[in-house]
């Protein structure tokens, strides 16, 4: 049975999109669609993507992050990435995503940034 891949939680009224799987060429589109659906349905203004349970992001996974970034930007909202593991952090650096999206390692500080 397939477990859940993405869910939207609220941390002191800040929306946190938690991803539970590697995001790659095979699953990035359904994860992107599901994420946008959750964001729209809950009228999310600013968003944290919690990457702590994501073992890896390939270039399609990076495409997913950028798609959500642009989706939030179009809504005049902000996006923050939280807790990528070392490997994911390196992929974010290689692709220069870290130059356009802030990365935090403490949830409280990420929430504070968006409050």
């Amino acid at each position, binding site marked *: 049975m397939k477990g859940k891949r993405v869910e939207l939680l609220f941390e002191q009224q800040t929306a946190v999109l938690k991803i539970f799987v590697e995001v790659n*060429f095979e699953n990035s589109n359904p994860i992107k669609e599901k994420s946008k659906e959750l964001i729209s349905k809950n009228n999310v203004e600013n968003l944290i993507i919690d990457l702590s349970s994501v073992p890896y992001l*390939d*270039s*399609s996974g990076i*495409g*997913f992050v950028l798609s959500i970034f*642009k989706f939030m930007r179009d809504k005049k909202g902000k996006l923050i990435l939280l807790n990528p593991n070392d490997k994911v952090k*390196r992929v974010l650096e290689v*692709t220069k995503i870290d*130059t356009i999206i802030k990365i935090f390692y403490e949830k409280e500080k990420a929430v504070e940034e968006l409050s």
Partner: protein
Amino acid sequence: MVKPAFKKQFLIGGSTESISEVIENILLLLKEKNLQIEDMDFRIELVLREMIANAVEHGCDKNNDFSQIKIKLEIKKNQISISVKDQGDGFEWQKRDLETLPIFAENGRGLIIINKTADRIEFNDCGNKIKVHFDFSEVD
């Protein structure tokens, strides 16, 4: 005396399950060889994942589980070479910009990541085979 080249070939199907396994096997094999390559595990995993993802995405019949992707690993004097070949029609790699990383585009990063991470990259004429090279200093 010149050491003979080490060669190994892997065949994987169009499904994604075998990707992690083959990458793990290759990294283990390279670790055993004790090669002095800067940041080897990260760079080789990054490149292999993108190369194999391209092969599965563009060069495989998803309904056919038969082994379709050929991965060749070769280690010789000061160089690791890894090639990935699929059964697709390939693509016009000559027309692709492999240097400019798109910051905001959602697609088109895979080949640029490969090009920027490996020491050298080459394709066969029709573009269904990609080969990357990593240099290292030989240790006696």
